[in-house]
């Protein structure tokens, strides 16, 4: 069936059908993104002061990606203009440039921006006193005095400046508070997490969080003490489904010498293994009718940056002992003399909540990943269409009907500009405000 009005405009609408279709589609997109933007506004306005995690975004990356999208938006109209002039080589050139920009945008997001957040953790403590001690250790006068802290190395005169920069002079005047650990630079450090602009309100929220212990420490987990586990078989269920031979084979697979003896008398079958091996062995042995016990046999320091840790990862108990005993936490906004971050050792038993900067972290990150994820999905869809329009199969239309192919590129351009348009609004609301 021939689709009518692919080139000439339909007289009553004044548009060729494809264009009207795309505009209707864009109208539905306005609804979709509009609803999410509105959700953002409602969530933000409804948030308690100090719980909206602004100031955690990397504005350089955001601005860079904005430029990339702007460029791609311009390239796509230039590609269309080339087609209108009958210049297929020019079309290819600009279309490839658009494609490259789109790919760069996604690469920055998926391989840099998001993974960086997934490695960044916030930790909340059960007991406010632990938080206070940790802050003292990380940002306190001792740390300042040792010349390890940013504010100190910047020099005394700059320090006064940086206080004002964060609005703390005003904040302190407002509070008239003078408790032991009110140090301007620490406040500034923390205020930056939730308050783009600081003032009396943010100072109050900070104080509340600090005293109540609801404030989180931010940084990276760079090493942790992971339990080494012994797997012990104690009994074998004779009424079970597994035959003697089958269960002994399971033991033999685990490289146990003399499986028949172990089956009847029990033994520690694996020593000092890691969590994954221990759990797999436990599962297999239990399937074979054994009663299995896991027990601690020392802790092993693992030096790697933790990704995506959540509370259960830090709080899991094995045989009544923590799977992770403690971890090294490199604090944000601190600098040692060698340029590294100040390290704290945090006992997992003190941890109330642990979260990477993932959607579950907070309402802010929930809506952030929802909107930018949906936008990224649009960019990805656009990439697929652009590839199709560059491949010989897509170019068949060019050989058949040049005008129609140009219209096809124009309608794709409309979609692409819309995607750019969404980002134009996303950039200020997510990265700047």
């Amino acid at each position, binding site marked *: 069936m021939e689709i*009518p*009005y692919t*080139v*000439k*405009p*339909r*007289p*009553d*609408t*004044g*548009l*060729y059908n494809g*264009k*009207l279709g795309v*505009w*209707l589609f*864009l*109208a539905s997109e*306005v*609804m979709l993104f*509009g*609803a999410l933007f*509105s959700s953002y*506004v*409602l969530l933000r*306005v*409804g948030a308690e002061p100090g719980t909206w995690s602004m100031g955690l975004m990397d*504005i350089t990356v955001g*601005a860079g990606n*904005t*430029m990339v999208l*702007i*460029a791609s*938006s*311009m390239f796509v*109209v*230039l590609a269309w*203009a080339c087609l*209108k*002039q009958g210049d297929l080589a020019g079309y290819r050139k600009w279309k490839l440039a658009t494609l490259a920009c789109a790919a760069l945008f996604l690469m920055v997001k998926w391989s840099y921006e998001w993974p960086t957040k997934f490695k960044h953790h916030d930790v909340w403590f059960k007991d406010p006193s632990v938080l206070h001690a940790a802050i003292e250790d990380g940002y306190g006068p001792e740390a300042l005095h040792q010349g390890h802290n940013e504010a100190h190395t910047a020099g005394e005169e700059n320090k006064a400046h940086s206080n004002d*920069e964060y*609005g703390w002079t005003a904040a302190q005047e407002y509070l008239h508070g003078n408790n032991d650990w009110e140090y301007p630079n620490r406040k500034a450090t923390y205020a930056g997490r939730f308050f*783009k*602009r600081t003032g009396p309100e943010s100072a109050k929220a900070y104080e509340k969080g600090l005293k109540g212990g609801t404030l989180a420490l931010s940084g990276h987990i760079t090493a942790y003490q992971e339990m080494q586990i012994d797997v012990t078989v104690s009994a074998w269920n004779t009424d079970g489904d597994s035959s003697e031979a089958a269960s002994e084979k399971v033991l033999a697979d685990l490289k146990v010498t003399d499986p028949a003896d172990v089956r009847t008398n029990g033994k520690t079958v694996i020593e000092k293994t890691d969590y994954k091996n221990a759990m797999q062995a436990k599962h297999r042995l239990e399937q074979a009718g054994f009663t299995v016990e896991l027990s601690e046999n020392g802790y092993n320091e693992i030096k790697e940056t933790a990704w995506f840790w959540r509370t259960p990862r830090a709080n899991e108990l094995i045989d009544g002992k923590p799977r992770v005993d403690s971890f090294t936490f490199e604090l944000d906004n601190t600098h040692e003399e060698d340029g590294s971050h100040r390290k704290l050792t945090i006992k997992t038993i003190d941890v109330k909540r642990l979260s990477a900067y993932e959607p579950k972290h907070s309402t802010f990150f929930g809506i952030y990943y929802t909107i930018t994820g949906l936008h990224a999905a649009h960019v990805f869809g656009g990439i697929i269409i652009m590839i199709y329009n560059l491949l010989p199969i897509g170019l068949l239309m060019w050989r058949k009907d040049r*005008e129609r192919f140009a*219209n096809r590129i*124009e309608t794709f*351009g*409309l979609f692409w*500009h*819309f995607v*750019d*348009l969404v980002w*134009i*609004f996303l*950039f*200020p*609301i997510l990265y*700047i*405000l």
Partner: protein
Amino acid sequence: MSDSHNSPTITTLIRMFYFVGGVLVLGTLITVLIDVMFETTLLTASVIGLSIAVVKSSFVVAIFMHYKWDKKLIMITWTMVLTFIFFAGMMGLIMWADGDIPHLSRTEVPVFWVVAAALFGLALPASFTILTVKLLSEPAPVEAVAPKAKRVSKKKKS
């Protein structure tokens, strides 16, 4: 541009495309610079940031999306305007349900305005139905024969 009758030549268009590209880059730079250089309240920052975003997006819609030359085409305008009205109405309903309006001081507003906003949203289904019935239910007219079609195209030319 086959459906617009008084659009400029391709070379003029390309010049405009580069100009718009420059405006967009400049807008982004200004936004970032203001954020880095000045300390502003959230309200000021929102007004400035979103105004720049609106200017940028207007350029995208007008030039990149050819709306400047398509706006006489009632279909696009109506589609987008009615979408907006419908959307505003839906948001009005949500706020009504929430009993709260996103006002920075979080004061309650008279329910009247929220209900009015919601009712306003009914304009979409009603007007869209009328428009659809009027324009699209008839079989596509043959250009040379249908007098109505002629009238529409004459209008566009004037």
